[in-house]
């Protein structure tokens, strides 16, 4: 039995988020607000990986991620892989992708932007660069990189 399995047991139903950028797992938990839910969650930090040098893994029991959560995850760790587990086996493997337009999940930092000042307008960002994450508000044009993204 490998070390990883000894550390954390396989889950019967739920989601395993694999290949999260090392040390990013805690932030993923916070942003997706998973620690507030009442299911069992395991977070593995700095796991040895063949693909990346180190990675984080999150196992969430009895819960599958929805589209918005997957979009947020893509911004936090674009290389992560979402495994949907049903009855101990991988029912679905989702290669996440940052969409070309990112709506409703990120705050615009420009207080004078119309999207922060008008009811019923949701924020909208265009993806400029995937590798060195950079997005741009489609309203005011403000650009943001990975470090200063604020989730709604």
């Amino acid at each position, binding site marked *: 039995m490998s070390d990883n399995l000894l550390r954390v047991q396989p889950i019967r139903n739920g989601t395993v988020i694999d290949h999260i950028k090392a040390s990013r797992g805690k932030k993923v938990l916070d942003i997706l607000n998973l620690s507030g839910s009442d299911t069992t969650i395991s977070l593995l930090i700095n796991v040895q990986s063949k693909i990346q040098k180190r990675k984080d893994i999150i196992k969430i029991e009895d819960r599958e991620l929805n589209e918005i959560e997957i979009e947020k995850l893509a911004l936090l760790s674009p290389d992560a892989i979402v495994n949907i587990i049903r009855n101990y086996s991988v029912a679905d493997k989702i290669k996440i992708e940052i969409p070309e337009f990112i709506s409703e999940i990120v705050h615009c930092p420009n207080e004078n932007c119309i999207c922060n000042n008008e009811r019923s307008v949701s924020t909208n960002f265009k993806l400029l660069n995937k590798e060195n994450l950079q997005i741009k508000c489609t*309203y005011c044009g403000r650009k943001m990189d990975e470090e200063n993204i604020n989730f709604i």
Partner: protein
Amino acid sequence: MKHIVSIEDLDNKSIMSLLKRASELLPVAEGKKKSDKLKGKILSTCFFEPSTRTRLSFESAMQRLGGSCIGFADPSATSHLKGETLSDAIRMVSGYSDAVVLRHPREGAAKLASEVSDVPIINGGDGAGQHPTQTLLDLFTIKEEIGKLENLKVGMLGDLRYGRTVHSLSQALDRFNTKLYFISPESLAMPDHVTDELTNDWSTHQNLESVLSELDVLYVTRIQKERFPDVEDYKRVAGAYRINSELLNNAKPKMKILHPLPRVDEISTNVDNTKHAAYFRQAFNGIPVRMALLEKLIGDK
């Protein structure tokens, strides 16, 4: 072409064709020739923030082409619309007219309006954001005064940090292979987000004298007192960036000075009668340029 939210909505070919049409429309703009190209058409001017120059030039342009205008100019109009969202106000106004000019204190307002409007939205300035017709009239002025837009050496002087006209103009001129000289105190330097996108050669300078003789165009902006916590600092800086006719002895004979106006005292009145002064013609150029744009957006339907 549907809406004009940003100068980026126009490619170089569309810009050149608008400038060419603006040039043809000069006699109509001056009232020497009549046009009824937009007869029966209505332009809404919705100014949620006052801007007399922009509003009057749009209204003049529309009327010179035989069209008419409705709208509001009063900043208190925003309180008349209290409770109503901008989106709802634009949906209403777009049903009353063939195009809408929008001036608004928030960045991105014109983009939002363009998402809900059935008729063309023209951005007449959105907060610290875009003001594409100003950029077009600046480009038109340079082309008319110098004879071309390509391969010029253009200096920008004054408040380059907060002046949105110089941001948009720099990015637009860069598309025409312009070498840009940014001349300002360090505290008012051109922001990185503008210079990062420039593909041609550019340089920064603390004083004008060192580069003046190289320039084809000098674009002057106002240094605003509000930017300086200390009045003495303001006086010192503003004094160092003042243009007068003696200073211009070193300039190329055909070098032209532009300024978006209103000026305070950054250009001495003794420059007004020199062959370098182009800023009053520049202010007038707002009319033919906006006429060309209105024709394109409303007349070609």
